[in-house]
């Protein structure tokens, strides 16, 4: 029975990964191979990244007799990555699974349902742990032949560490589910945590080359931090390093197993209650208020904005590019002194900075795919708008305007910061606004047009609608091509005839022209496509 339950969980995971467009369709061998290659590539990138980090750490730590800290850092990173990578999966698999009630109605022991879920969660934690610990272990083997005891304890540690992160995930998953059930905006928790995770991730990626030196330089502080915040990781390091402190390793094992056993005991006792609890959230009593009357176009846009604001996956996947938009001008402001020095030496380059930042804004907008998932996210409720006396063109335009409306505040802040940090002629100020503005409009309309042509309505999770699918890929690809082509044309050829400002103005006019064509398409081909969905 347990085997069947675990097999079902794996099948559900595979289905979520590969299927979506047509759940009945068999996955082709080509698609399996492609996903396999992509999976291996991602895994290889992370393993390389951590390998480089530990390669940089080993020698200095070994030379200063701080190998315990080396292993402690590895264990701490493994715990953190596994926790971050699995906390929401734990929440959805354990506390918010929609098949809990179905399984509980069958002649299956509740503990079996719990264990089947824990096995799958453990394996996903093990994968994250191995991504960190395997490179750390390989690097240490390269430098010094390990003892048998060292290898046994290290391998044991690799298999025990996921239980540590799983314990944390179970506690925080429960906490997030509890907070979610007491909040009106349930998605806010996952949104905040995911954005924080992204911020840490990008910090880590951007500083990956300097990270080993930073850790070595601040070894005392890092050690003190891990000793306090990651006591289990600290004990693991003490137990593994050199001859190893056997007692410390036992403390590590106990610190992993005892909390895990406690969490399992609580979960198995309360699983039926957890699985069948009311997930409806806070009950809001209706109080009669005056109703607002809107025009069809305004009501459609408001509906899109409300939907966007209520969907964390949509905000994250579609709008993450907009957060990056602010990075460029902030960097300029933060390094104003340095930039001024550069400009004083290369005054000819100074006038291009504003344009470069405007192009950077466009680049971030090419990664913004809000409207490219706006038709797909209608999903099963698409009948609603189709049955109403509304022109399908207005529906599609409202989806494009959603992206434009969400982009505008970011563009405004970014442009003002850019104007404060840079200087240029009046024309440069004008084109640094017009170019991104026309590009933003074009990208908003392009996403809606592409999604009308390539919708994906039979999704099981909103993330599939806004993250996967051809329209998202095509939107990003076309957006990048529409940006790169004029830049290449100017760099290679047009600069002989046009100044940078004139070129930017022509590009802005071209983007406005493409926007007009896309608008016309939404009223004809796009409209027909939407009506046929």
């Amino acid at each position: 029975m347990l085997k069947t339950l675990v097999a079902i969980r794996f099948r559900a995971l595979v289905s979520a990964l590969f299927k979506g467009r047509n759940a009945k369709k068999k996955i082709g061998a080509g698609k399996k191979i492609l996903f396999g290659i992509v999976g291996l590539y991602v895994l290889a990138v992370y393993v390389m990244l951590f390998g480089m980090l530990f390669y940089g750490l080993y020698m200095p730590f070994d030379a200063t007799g701080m190998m315990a800290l080396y292993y402690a850092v590895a264990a701490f990173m493994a715990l953190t990555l596994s926790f971050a990578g699995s906390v929401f999966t734990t929440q959805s698999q354990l506390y918010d699974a929609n098949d809990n009630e179905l399984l509980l109605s069958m002649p299956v022991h509740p503990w079996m349902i719990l264990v089947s879920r824990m096995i799958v969660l453990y394996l996903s934690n093990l994968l994250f742990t191995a991504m960190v610990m395997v490179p750390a272990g390989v690097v240490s083997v390269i430098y010094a032949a390990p003892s048998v005891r060292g290898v046994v304890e290290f391998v044991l540690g690799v298999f025990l560490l996921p239980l540590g992160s799983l314990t944390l995930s179970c506690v925080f998953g429960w906490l997030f589910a509890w907070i979610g059930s007491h909040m009106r905006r349930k998605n806010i928790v996952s949104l905040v945590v995911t954005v924080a995770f992204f911020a840490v991730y990008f910090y880590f990626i951007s500083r990956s080359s300097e990270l080993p030196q930073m850790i070595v330089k601040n070894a005392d502080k890092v050690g003190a931090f891990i000793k306090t915040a990651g006591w289990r990781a600290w004990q693991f390091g003490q137990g593994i390093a050199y001859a190893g402190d056997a007692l410390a390793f036992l403390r590590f094992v106990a610190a992993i197993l005892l909390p895990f056993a406690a969490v399992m005991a609580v979960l198995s006792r309360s699983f039926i209650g957890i699985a069948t609890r009311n997930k409806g959230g806070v009950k809001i009593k209706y109080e009669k208020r005056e109703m607002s009357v809107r025009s069809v176009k305004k009501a459609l846009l408001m509906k899109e904005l409300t939907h966007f604001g209520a969907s964390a996956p949509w905000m994250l996947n579609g709008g993450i590019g907009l957060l990056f938009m602010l990075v460029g001008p902030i960097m300029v402001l933060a390094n104003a002194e340095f930039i001024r020095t550069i400009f004083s030496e290369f005054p000819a380059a100074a006038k291009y900075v504003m344009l470069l930042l405007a192009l950077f804004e466009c680049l971030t907008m090419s990664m913004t795919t809000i409207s490219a998932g706006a038709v797909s996210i209608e999903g099963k409720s698409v009948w609603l708008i189709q049955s109403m006396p509304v022109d399908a063109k207005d529906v599609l335009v409202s989806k494009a305007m959603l992206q434009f409306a969400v982009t505008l505040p970011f563009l405004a802040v970014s442009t003002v910061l850019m104007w404060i940090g840079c200087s240029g002629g009046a024309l440069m100020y004008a084109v640094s606004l017009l170019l991104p503005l026309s590009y933003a409009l074009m990208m908003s309309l392009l996403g809606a047009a592409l999604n009308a042509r390539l919708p994906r309505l039979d999704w099981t999770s909103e993330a599939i609608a806004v993250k996967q699918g051809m329209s998202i890929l095509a939107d990003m690809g076309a957006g990048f091509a529409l940006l790169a082509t004029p830049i290449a044309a100017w760099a290679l050829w047009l600069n002989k005839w046009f100044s940078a400002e004139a070129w930017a103005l022509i590009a802005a006019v071209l983007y406005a022209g493409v926007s007009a064509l896309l608008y016309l398409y939404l009223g004809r081909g796009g409209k027909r496509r939407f009506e046929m969905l």
Partner: protein
Amino acid sequence: MLKIDHLTKRYGDKEAVKDLSLHIKPGEIYGFIGHNGAGKTTTIKSCAGILAFDEGEIEVGGVSIRQDPIACKKMMAYIPDNPDLYDFLSGVKYLNFVADMYGVGKGEREERIARYADLLELTDDLAQPVSAYSHGMKQKLAIISALIHEPRLIIMDEPFVGLDPKATHILKGVMRDICDKGGAIFFSTHVLEVAEKLCDRVAIIRQGRLVANGTMEEVSGDASLEEVFLELEGGNA
């Protein structure tokens, strides 16, 4: 009010509906009966203007749904068998959105929402997000949203599924009331007793073809609708 003329709809090689003609007049409750996969939902969706058809014509209030779908949709309301509504809106915001789409005035929408929400006992839950609604509550919300612009024609696909007995009774009363005021209702159902008691006329569809239609007397005579249906279906109950 609703005229279906030689409707044919194909999915690839399969003919889901073939040469189907029906005429629903003002004041009539018209029941549409058939086995699973007979073509009821295809016909209903074609009438609601959300499914393109291959041959024939559908007119709502004398207006072709092919030529002027928006004018047709203004006159009618559609309730599907499984109302997937906007989960991200609260009940009242959903109703307000629907009212905006149909251009219902402020006073009228407030009065109608209050009236029908009270009638279907949904008032207390209107501030809740639709995602927190049960199937029956969603069905009630879909019914209120269908009534908000006082349509002349209501097309419903299995409207009683998920409703509690009280709400079912109230809906039947509302349906009769609409038709008494000159409106028309075309709905599909598997509950033959409901069709028998509620409908002025019924149509029976089998494998995409109309096999019987008319008043209850014309279709079933002295027999029950169930007996007639099973006989037409070739059943041996």
